[in-house]
């Protein structure tokens, strides 16, 4: 059992990075995730574990520092919020092409453009479908509590290094800013240079006389090799899809109608389930924990068990609904409901939308 604290989601993410033995954090402040770099600066983890924390001159610089440190086999992380994550997309595409492991958190705010500083989930497309160029994927984890903000950092690093790819922790202003109880894990030591060399034969750890030089790049002008590289990436993504789908089901056993929601919307929809059940409605909640890979099969299994309709609830104008519709493939009704612009839907209006849009009169 670790240490029990009351923390903001952003602070829990930062503390978890220190405790799981991260080597470096490079970032640039932006509301509503500035607490991450504030907390790290205040804690000065260099003295605790040797972890480097640096406020870069821009988001572009930060993501390229991540690219370099990850290429050296280091556990490296960055975080930002929506407009800042846009600036990092070029770097993330390079990281995907070069197969560099890293973790980045996006504490989403309303858009498009500078938008608003209030919570939003309208960056689902950007993070699950790829915001940069080329055929690539990032694993996307969606925390729905302060505890998961902490838990998904070590999980993120584990997956990032297992598959040599970027892992996105897709949060939002509500989960980042709220305080809840969190149990923090024990401090783990950072890997030594020797351990990195032994574990990650691909890492750039300094060439010695007589050893082959290693190259980490996203560039290859040989078309045949580049095609094979793309095929290799796709095989890797297939593996991830096979092994890493995560989700939670609440009150789905006898459900006829199911909310599909992640992050803060999942917390709200959970209350809608309680309110609906109190009225005698057979409603449940499917909470995707990985947004890529998506729990497509879980939705299909629910349809096989008799679920008649789904309401995709998201602080957006309707993004995740596309994945729900693909999963349904015409076999069950599915629609979107969500408030935007920084307004957060209430449990009552989410339940009302389910009744009106899905259950009907």
């Amino acid at each position, binding site marked *: 059992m670790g240490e029990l604290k009351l923390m903001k989601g952003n602070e829990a993410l930062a503390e978890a990075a220190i405790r799981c033995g991260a080597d470096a954090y490079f970032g640039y402040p932006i*509301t509503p995730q500035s607490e991450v770099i504030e907390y790290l600066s205040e804690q000065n983890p260099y003295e605790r574990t040797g972890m480097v924390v640096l406020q870069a001159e821009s988001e572009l610089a930060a993501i390229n520092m991540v690219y370099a440190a990850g290429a050296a086999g280091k556990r490296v992380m960055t975080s930002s919020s929506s407009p800042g994550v846009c600036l990092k997309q070029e770097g993330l595409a390079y990281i995907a092409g070069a197969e560099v492991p890293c973790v980045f958190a996006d504490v989403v705010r309303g858009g498009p453009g500078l938008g608003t500083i209030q919570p939003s989930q309208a960056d689902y497309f950007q993070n699950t479908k790829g915001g940069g160029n080329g055929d690539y994927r990032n694993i996307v984890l969606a925390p729905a509590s302060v505890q998961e903000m902490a838990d998904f950092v070590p999980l993120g690093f584990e997956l990032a290094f297992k598959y040599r790819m970027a892992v996105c922790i897709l949060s939002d202003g*509500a989960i980042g800013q*709220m*305080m*809840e109880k969190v149990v923090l894990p024990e401090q783990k030591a950072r890997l030594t240079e020797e351990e990195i060399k032994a574990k990650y034969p691909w890492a750039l750890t300094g060439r010695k006389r007589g050893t082959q030089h290693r190259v980490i790049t996203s560039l290859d002008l040989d078309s045949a090799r580049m095609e094979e590289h793309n095929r290799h990436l796709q095989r890797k993504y297939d593996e991830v899809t096979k092994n890493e789908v995560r989700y939670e089901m609440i009150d789905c056993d006898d459900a006829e109608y199911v909310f599909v929601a992640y992050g803060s919307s999942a*917390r709200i929809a959970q*209350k809608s389930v309680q309110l609906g059940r109190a009225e005698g409605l057979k409603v449940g909640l499917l909470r995707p924990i990985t947004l890529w890979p998506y729990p497509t099969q879980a939705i299909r299994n629910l349809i096989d068990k008799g679920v008649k309709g789904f309401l995709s609830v998201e602080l957006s104008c309707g993004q995740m609904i596309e994945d729900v519709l693909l999963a349904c493939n015409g076999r069950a009704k599915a629609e979107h409901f969500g408030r935007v612009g920084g307004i957060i839907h209430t449990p009552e209006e989410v339940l009302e939308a389910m009744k009106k849009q899905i259950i009907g009169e």
Partner: protein
Amino acid sequence: MTEEIIIAGFGGQGVLSMGKILAYSGIMQDKEVSWMPSYGPEMRGGTANVTVIVSDERVCSPILNAFDTAVILNQQSLDKFEDKVKPGGYLIYDPNGITHKPTRKDIHIYSIEGAQLASDMGNSKVFNMIILGAFLKVRPIIDNKNVEEGLRHSLPERAHKLIPLNMQAVQVGMDNIKAEN
């Protein structure tokens, strides 16, 4: 037991820190808690509010539209949240600066002269602790010893010498809250 609370007032009144102390005190009493602020421009002088939930069960939605108790510290917040108290719920307000008093008949209404009492104590900073005391008198969901523990955990060590003064303010709040209906 689940108590869903909104605390609302001006930025600078200690609304967010009162919520934090309440949440930490809840943890000390082995409760599940959540603390969800409104943030951003509101925090810089406008209205500030925080939703605190203290419960025996895991908290689902930290964002609510209806509350068991509203703690109201200015007119704008009264206008915004009076209607959001559940029937049979509680509304506690400081009459200082209130021009239109609460009118609902289906909720319990209490007043606490927090600003005046803080000024009488010679320290405007204990205002929010007086309000917290008033709240705990009406809704005794947390023991005083756990409030003290909550303070110890939420204040930095250098401020621990102020804990007795803060607990005194809690007592002043408990002693001076008045039922209005």
